[in-house]
Each structure stands twice: as structure tokens, then as C-alpha cells.
């Protein structure tokens, strides 16, 4: 058993809680400690290229891991899509807007003056939110209500603090301890392109065997179940 070993995992903010549970499960099974650093995938991308000591990288999209692999920073053959993000419309617990009943039309409600989403230019969740709004046909109507967080987590804070009366955020975040008292309406997966999230083992990982073991654990049925529990969909092709 690999007692005393430590894996360093860089994980996108939206998978934080799922990752923490996965890490605990993995540690109890293998004794290998997993240190999770959460942050912005864009930062991790730059940092891994600069030799950051991460063994594994769980990105919030597929683009960063692919680019890393192309540039030779990934252990060959380890890149895989571990989950797909889902989005919800979230309103604070004291909101009088019944989002669970109204669905999209809640966003058109005059009580909703600001809608927080992640910045579509940089965040996959933001892109998904915009395309879902377009699909629902209300983008032009709500365009002026939108405010942008640097990432989906910041969008959640806008809504949480009440400055935005609604937010389109990651399902995983809506399930997190700080947000789950609010009301959330799941946006059907078909309304936006899939939010593909890729993971890989870094090529300068100190402990490649353990890293691969963790990757395999995430792929396992327990791993999938945990991800699903935290609001992720598992890609069909896996």
C-alpha cells in the first residue's frame, strides 16, 4: 500500500466538492493522500506549462487539457473526459420568484433585475448559459440584465448576495452546502452544447502510478456515482 504518498490535484472550482469526496474515498481505499487545489482552469493551464507540481489536472473544459496534451505536458494517453457540467437557474431562498415552477419565464419577471452568469468569453459555463438563453429565445430580452462573474462561482456569489436576483450557475454549485438552500431549476441538457470537462495526468507527475490509480478510480462506478451525486453528467462515450 502506498502509505504516506501524496497526490497533488489541480481541480476546477466547479468540481471542488465532488473532488473532495472522491479524494476521501480514494484515500480510505488506498491510503494515498490527495491534496486538492481548486482554482481557475486558465491559471492551471499556464501554471502546468511553467512546471507546477500538480500530478493531475481536472479542468472545467476540454480545451485546456487538449492544448496541454498537444504541447507535451500530459502523460500520453491519460486525457479523458471525466464529466459534463450541467446548469441551473438559481434564485436565493428569500426570492418570491418561483423559479422551480416558472422555469425560463422566471428570468423575464420584473422582480429579476440582474441575472448573473459566468463570463462567456472565458468560462464554459458562461458559454452554455448564453446558448441556452438563445435556445430558449429570451437572450435578447434578458441581455441587459446580465452581469458577468469571472467564473461560475463568482456568478453564484452575485446571486447569493442578492445583488443579482437570479443566476445561471453550475448544478454542482447549486448543490454545494452554501447554495443548496436556494431554489434551482435544472436547464435541460439538450439546450446547450455539452460542457465537456477533461482530466489528465501531468507528464512531470512525481508519482505517476498513484496518479493513474486515482484517474482509474474516477472512472470507476463509485467515482461516477459520486460525480453524478454532485450534479455532473457522465459522458456517454466513456
Amino acid at each position, binding site marked *: 500500500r502506498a502509505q504516506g504518498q501524496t497526490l497533488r490535484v489541480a481541480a476546477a472550482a466547479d468540481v471542488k466538492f465532488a473532488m473532495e469526496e472522491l479524494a476521501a474515498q480514494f484515500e480510505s481505499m488506498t491510503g494515498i493522500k490527495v491534496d486538492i487545489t481548486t482554482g*481557475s482552469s*486558465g*491559471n492551471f*493551464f*499556464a501554471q502546468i506549462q511553467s512546471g507546477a507540481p500538480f500530478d493531475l489536472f481536472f479542468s472545467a473544459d476540454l480545451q*485546456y487539457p487538449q*492544448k496541454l496534451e498537444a504541447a507535451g505536458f500530459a502523460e500520453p494517453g491519460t486525457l479523458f473526459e471525466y464529466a459534463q457540467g450541467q446548469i441551473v437557474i438559481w434564485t436565493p431562498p428569500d426570492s418570491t420568484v418561483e423559479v422551480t415552477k416558472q422555469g425560463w419565464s422566471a428570468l423575464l419577471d420584473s422582480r429579476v*433585475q*440582474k441575472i*448573473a452568469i459566468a*463570463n462567456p*468569453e*472565458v468560462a464554459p459555463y458562461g458559454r452554455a448559459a448564453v446558448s441556452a438563453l438563445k435556445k430558449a429565445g429570451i437572450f435578447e430580452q434578458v441581455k441587459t440584465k446580465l*452581469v*458577468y*462573474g*469571472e467564473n461560475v462561482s*463568482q456568478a453564484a*456569489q*452575485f446571486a447569493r*448576495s*442578492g*445583488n*443579482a436576483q437570479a443566476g445561471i450557475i453550475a448544478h454542482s454549485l447549486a448543490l454545494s452546502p452554501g447554495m443548496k438552500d436556494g431554489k434551482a431549476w435544472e436547464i435541460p441538457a439538450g439546450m446547450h452544447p455539452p460542457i465537456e470537462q477533461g482530466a489528465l495526468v501531468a507528464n512531470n507527475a512525481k508519482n505517476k502510478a498513484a496518479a493513474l490509480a486515482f484517474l482509474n478510480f474516477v472512472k470507476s462506478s463509485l467515482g461516477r456515482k459520486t460525480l453524478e451525486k454532485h450534479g455532473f453528467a457522465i459522458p456517454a462515450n466513456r
Partner: protein
Amino acid sequence: MSSLALSFELAGCVAAILLAIGTPVAYWLAYSNWRGKFLLESIVALPLVLPPTVLGFYALLAMGPRGPLGRLWMALFGHGLAFTFSGLVIASVVYSFPFAVQPLIASFEAVDRKLLDASAVLGAGKWRTFRRIILPLSLPGVVTALVLSFAHTLGEFGVVLMVGGNLAGVTRTVSIDIYDRVQSIEYRAANHLALLLLGISFAVLCLVYAVNRCVWAPAWARWTVK
């Protein structure tokens, strides 16, 4: 480049407001006889120790519909404070406050007390003494305060992002713009923007310092490193 213009507008507003608010505060802290004033001095520096986004988050709470500031603003102007330029200005003022006040205190304290006595004896009240004696003699400190608060506001992005909501033309400052480009791996664009920002800032700072030297130099510049 609207984000650039917005940034300079914000930095200018904030620096001006900070000078206006910071000066009386610094004056009082420099000349008050109150023994407990070191407590206040410490409080003035406190906004610095919090990470900007966290400070921004608390600002957001305060400006929110349940926050005191938000409710006040709503009552006064009929709309919220968050995600507006005014909100940005207020949050930035709070965050950059120490950069303005600390140098002012230090330079006010360095003014020779005998000159203040002389001014009083010549019939000048507090205000005239301040305007004609303390302020000109503290010029280096005032310039430092201006430069630090101006430059710091230009570069600030944590608070701005949090309170502003990154709305193009309203609250998307150039620093957020650059940040976004770095995040989306558009490094060339980020570099260009950063260089532009640096260039313009450099020009502005040069102007400030050159003018400062001209005003200041003749009478004092005698002792020099040989």
C-alpha cells in the same frame, strides 16, 4: 479601447475622491492629540490585509438589497449600487484608502511645527495654515498619495470584478479585460493591451513627477549623492 478609458476615468475619480476624503482624515490623525489615535491609524490600514475579491465580496454584501449601503442607495437613487460605476468608485475608494492616507499622514507630520506657530501668529486660521503652509510643504507626500492611489486603482481588479460584474462599457476596466484575455489564452492580445496600459500609465506618471520636480526642485535640491 473603451475599457482603457473607463479605467482611467475610474482611477482619476478615485484618486480625486481619496485626496478629498483622505486629506482631512490624515490631517486629523497627524495633528490630533488623542492618545488612542494609533488605533484609528491601524484601522485605516486594515482594508489592505484582506484579499481584494474578499473585500469585494463584503462590499457586494453591503451594497446588496439587504446591506446598509445598498438600502441607503436604493432609497436615495432608486436603483442598486452593485454593478454600477458609482459602486465601483465607492469600493475602490475603500480599498485604496490606506494608500492615500498613510503617505499624507507621514508628510503632514514632517512639517516643522515652528512654521505652523508662525502662521498662527500671523493671524492665519487652521484652514489658511493648512492651505498655504502644510499642503505645499507636504507636496511630496501628496504626490505619493496621488500616484499610489491612482496606479493602484488602475491595476485593481479583484474588487472591481466583484462589485462591477464585468459589464462592457460600464464596469469592465482594462485590468479585467487583460485578465480575461490571459484566462482565455489570448496571450498576444493580453500583451498588447498590457503594453498599452503600461505605456499610457508611464506617460501619466512621468508627467506627474516631472511637474512635481519643477515645482519642487529649485529651492531644495542642493544636497545630492556625490
